[in-house]
């Protein structure tokens, strides 16, 4: 079993692992932000702080042979599904040891053994691809599902509507999960979209839909589990809108100064990490000293990761010529 699959199994088996992985993701994004600011990371980054519950819900509820088409906001879902911090950071830093060998970068993470399709930097790019993967499963009568995750901004692009329609008429085993983090790039949803509850859009495709509290992994998992059951049993697609909030800006150095005062703080009081923490404490699976210990470990692990990855080799020049054409 490779390390990635081992990490996947951890979050599929243990609630505490969800919490641990969320801490890992949060620390990862914090350090990526710092590395970007220092100039150690070039290009762009899109951080997922605040949206970890959805990433972990997906990773821990799907089977290993299901597939996920995600977006350029990819670090969280990649780590949640099992990619190691080393392979993701190395990819973001353009190192040979990255999950795409350094030709992808922050927006393009992939691992076939985890069912993580190359994440797309095109809004709406993954939605029809997920439908197509689901079509393959349906034709071959496999009990697998495909899941497309995307942001609220994606629900205004044609690909969203075309894919939902296609998935509905063909009753494909696909789940569309919208991480409604309130902002599409630099624009608040009310500026770009005439409705707030995006799940209503599925109504016109006669597709089951619901909204869930995207800050609460337990709620997201429950909704996902129902959708997955429906898909596996031939009931077709589902649209889930997870209400979340993007704690960071859209990308790179965006400070998100366009936010109304107090909005961030309001959402931070329902930080998905905090919500999970409270659940676990209430259930007696966690206490404050263990919390402190786990948080310290996340920081320490990331320090080690950075140290290691910074020393990793750059790709050989021939890496750019590889994997353009598949061979029989």
């Amino acid at each position: 079993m490779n390390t990635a699959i081992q990490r996947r199994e951890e979050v599929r088996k243990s609630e505490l692992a969800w919490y641990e992985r969320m801490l890992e993701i949060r620390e990862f994004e914090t350090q990526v932000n710092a590395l970007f600011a220092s100039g150690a990371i070039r290009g762009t980054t899109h951080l997922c702080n605040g949206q970890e519950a959805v990433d972990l819900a997906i990773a821990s509820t799907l089977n290993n042979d299901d597939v996920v088409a995600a977006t350029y906001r990819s670090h969280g879902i990649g780590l949640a599904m099992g990619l190691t911090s080393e392979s993701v950071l190395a990819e973001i830093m353009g190192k040979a040891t990255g999950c795409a060998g350094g030709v992808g970068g922050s927006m393009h993470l992939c691992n076939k053994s985890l069912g993580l399709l190359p994440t797309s930097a095109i809004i709406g790019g993954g939605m029809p691809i997920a439908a197509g993967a689901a079509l393959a499963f349906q034709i071959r009568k496999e009990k697998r599902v495909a899941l497309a995750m995307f942001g609220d901004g994606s629900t205004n692009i044609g690909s969203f509507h075309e894919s939902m329609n296609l998935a509905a008429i063909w009753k494909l085993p696909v789940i569309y999960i919208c991480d409604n983090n309130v902002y599409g790039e630099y624009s608040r949803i009310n500026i770009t979209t005439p409705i707030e509850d995006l799940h209503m859009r599925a109504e016109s495709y006669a597709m089951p839909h619901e909204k869930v509290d995207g800050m609460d992994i337990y709620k997201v998992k429950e909704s996902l589990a129902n959708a997955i059951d429906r898909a596996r049993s031939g009931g077709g697609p589902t649209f889930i809108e997870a209400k979340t909030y993007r704690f960071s800006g859209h990308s790179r150095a965006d400070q998100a100064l366009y936010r109304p005062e107090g909005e961030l703080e309001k959402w931070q009081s329902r930080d998905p990490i905090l919500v999970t923490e409270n659940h676990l404490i209430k259930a007696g699976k966690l206490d404050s000293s263990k919390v402190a210990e786990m948080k310290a470990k996340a920081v320490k692990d990331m320090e080690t990761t950075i140290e290691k990855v910074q020393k990793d080799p750059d790709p050989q020049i021939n890496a750019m010529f590889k994997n353009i054409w598949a061979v029989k």
Partner: protein
Amino acid sequence: MADMRVRQAIVQALKDEMTNDPSVILFGEDIAAAEGPFKTSEGLLEQFGPDRVRDTPISEMAFTGAAVGAAMMGMKPVIEIMFMEFLGVALDQLVTEAAKMHYLSNGEYSVPMVVRASNASGLGFGSQHSQTLENWVNATPGLKVVTLSDAQSAYSLLRAAIAEPNPVMFLEPRILYAERGSVDTNLKMEIGKARLLQNGDQVTVVAMGNMVNVARNAIKETGISADLIDLATLVPWDRDTVLNSVSKTKRLVVVEESPFSGGWGNEIVAYVSTQLFGKLLAPAIRISTPDVPVPFSGALESRFAPTSSEVSRQIKELVEKNQAPKPWWIVEGVSK
């Protein structure tokens, strides 16, 4: 050997691949129940059933993307874009998703899909249903581009395209669908390999699609001894065959149904001129369409793509004077 129309050769290729390989599936607009607007999937729904032969909504982006996803999961989708122009709304899925998946997955995923599209002028479909548009896709590493020119290449190249592990854009000049030809179903053609259709020593004529017929007629009219090459695959194009031929004839004419500015023939001419600098007897030239949208009126459309009389005039002039002839719109003083 069987005598069949180009559209029947397409059906036969699809049928044979689907029989050999259960992962081959077809979808597109009106391809199942209606058997294709150009009857290129006649009988396939009946033979292979609705799971493998599907009608889609008019949603090119969704079904092109669905082909990408299905291909990544091990199917071999062959999709039909009714008119090449309709790919415009789905280009992202082909150029930016399909063609990048192998690269971005460190070689883990591949996308064995074929996008068939009818293209080119000549049937009075007007500006938005008559373009060739290879130029939209020919600068995309990771995507192969092929054009049929007769019934044999329709059959053999389509089978090769379906067997390809990479995404292939398969172009079908609509004006050829009804044309008859003999087809040897045992004849294999390779993607990336041009077809040397006739041998000569005074000039090499490179063409693709329906322009192969036009060039063949033109060569006959001139009585000049020419190599005629059907390029067949535009990406990756067969540099060796073209270069070997021009090394021998020392003259190159590319006949293409795409605009004078930016057409794919520039690629051929630039490469050959660079490689054979100082060794050619005449400038390497292109015979193309003028830089105009495809006009509707028969009086205009009949002059739009290179005609055999235009091609023969230019070939003759090139071989006689070893100078680049002017295109008809300059000769006639109607444009620059």
